[in-house]
């Protein structure tokens, strides 16, 4: 992918820019630290890190409020943080602690907070697209003006449930955004192999909705495209699709040796496709914010993550009775 120039149509004020930066930095710091904790053995199971894709979740969720919805994937930490989930609760969740955002019962692949409109990470590829169609239907039926965003990977774009969902959203003219994050890989398979047409947004467009491709390393480009889509949704004009071109700095999961990537690929991408320095360069050049303001955020983020991890490590595991609760409301 050739990197496109950051666009400049969007006017975000200083506070918004700092918020965007804080979110991206929080995600990056959270993921980096969780990768380390995983390697230390304090985070059990599988963990899929979002590093490299921060601009996308951040740009999407800055267009949303708590009464909008997102549905996420197995790689859901970034989406969750951007949508406002409590970072401490997330750290504890990943460690299976009672203080976790889901009481430790969900784990990395099931982080959720419905009060924030975060309908859950999802361990089933493509699994959340229908749910987001339903959330869009709910917003439309209850006339809340809300929209629903379904995050989908390039690999997940090939799942039947996702295709069906696009058609259903078009037919019912629902306020849904199909937000494809094309990081080039589904596990160890390249996007260019797995998507027969080589073009996710083109395929989405053929379902009957506006679809565009954007540079996913450019926060502003994503923000603008999402803004258009969300406005369409709120105005009752139906669904949209966006394909954001990005990469993945880590393996599919923590521990993946990534043999399928040429030597040096990740290093090169880290230099050229890191959305955070791209954002920083831009806002400093614009003089929109000061370096000092960004550094303050860096420090705050570091200490937040440190605190979150420490509290999570110290937190108790759920009691044995928790095994049997929350299966039903009544049974």
């Amino acid at each position, binding site marked *: 992918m050739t990197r496109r120039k950051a666009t400049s149509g969007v006017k975000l004020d200083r506070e918004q820019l700092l918020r965007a930066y804080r979110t991206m930095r929080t995600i990056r710091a959270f993921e980096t630290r969780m990768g380390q904790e995983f390697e230390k053995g304090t985070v059990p199971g599988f963990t899929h890190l979002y590093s490299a894709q921060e601009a996308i979740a951040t740009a999407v969720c800055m267009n949303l409020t708590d009464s909008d919805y997102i549905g996420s994937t197995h790689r859901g930490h970034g989406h969750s943080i951007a949508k406002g989930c409590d970072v401490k609760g997330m750290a504890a969740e990943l460690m299976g602690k009672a203080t976790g955002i889901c009481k430790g*019962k969900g784990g990395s692949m099931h982080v959720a907070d419905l009060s924030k409109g975060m309908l859950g990470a999802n361990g089933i590829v493509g699994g959340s697209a*229908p749910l987001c169609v339903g959330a869009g239907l*709910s917003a439309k039926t*209850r006339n809340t003006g809300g929209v629903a965003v379904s995050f989908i990977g390039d690999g997940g774009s090939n799942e039947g449930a996702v295709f069906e969902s696009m058609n259903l959203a078009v037919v019912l003219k629902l306020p849904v955004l199909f937000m494809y994050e094309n990081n080039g890989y589904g596990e160890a398979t390249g996007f260019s192999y797995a998507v027969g047409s080589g073009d996710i947004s083109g395929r989405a467009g053929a379902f009957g909705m506006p679809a565009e491709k954007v540079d996913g390393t450019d926060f502003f480009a994503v923000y603008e495209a999402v803004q258009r889509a969300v406005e369409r949704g709120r105005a009752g004009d139906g669904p949209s699709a966006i394909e954001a071109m990005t990469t993945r700095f880590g393996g599919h999961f923590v521990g993946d040796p990534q043999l399928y990537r040429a030597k040096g690929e990740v290093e090169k991408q880290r230099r050229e496709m890191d959305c955070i320095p791209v954002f920083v360069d831009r806002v400093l050049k614009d003089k929109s914010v000061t370096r000092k303001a960004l550094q303050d955020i860096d420090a705050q983020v570091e200490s937040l993550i440190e605190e979150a991890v420490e509290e999570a490590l110290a937190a108790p595991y759920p009691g044995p009775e928790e095994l049997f609760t929350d299966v039903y409301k009544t049974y």
Partner: protein
Amino acid sequence: MPKKTIREVIHDTVQSEMRRDPTVILMGEDVAGGAGCSGEDDAFGGAFGFYKGLVGEFGRGRIIDTPISEAAYIGAAAGAAMTGLRPIADLQFFDFLGVCFDQIYNQMAKFRYMFGGKSDTPLVILSLVGAGLRCGAQHSQSLHPQVTAVPGLKVVMPENAYDTKGLLLTAIRDDDPVIFLLHKLQFENACEVPDEEYLIPFGEASFVREGTDVTVVAFSAMVAKAVAVADRLREEGISVEVIDPRTTSPLDEEAILESVEMTGRLVVVDEAWERCSVAADISSIVARKAFGALQAPIMTVTAPHTPAPFSPVLEDLYIPGEDDIESAIREVIAYRR
């Protein structure tokens, strides 16, 4: 009291709940019908006419025809349920479970648990099970064990119009996902149904016949057969208790165990295939929890381990029949250690 068919009860109950609660919606293939066509709206009202007329009253915003894409619309029902609606999703035949099963057992069933108790998913999937329509192997299955097995789901299998009303009201108002399964051969069956609202709680069996010699547990279309046999055998002096659990999940274990404690003999009838059926499940519960009372083998009467055949002569053999139930009862009655 007015007599109503199950079909009418479904219609009236969905209608009254939609009037009462604006968050109740109905979605599925041809639940109205006629969309994008030259003729009448409300052309189908569901594949079996359950919902005929509702689109006129509630409009296409609440009676929602969907494309043929079950994973999407069943999943959308779940997503809508998480976010403030109470959808009823019509799945024409439960045989189609296979194209939307993920949304059922991996998604809706697990949300409350995975999310630490912080979500409700109030939706009803209404569908049809069973053989007898002469439609061949892909339209004649009893796949209720597949969902009864799944924690987080509730499974309702009413056998008559009266129970259908009370259970459907409970289902629509329930905050967990409910699989509501009618039998394909039964929805024209009628009985007296009060006009007033009444809710039948889940997990409460109905004692359809009281008896002391043998307990027969049967549900859905098998209840009527069990009752016919019971009534026949009564004339011979064999006293058969017939229990209809009405919901397979939750299951009213207590009722079944109590009855077996008294009769010492159990026959379980289930139209599902024998392996891992609800019949096997109930049998196993009793073999564990009421063993001391048992005076005879526990008989299960189920479909055989074969796909459903098309040919009527074979299908009639395939479906558990009164004769199968009768000989199972006779066998446990005659049994001496």
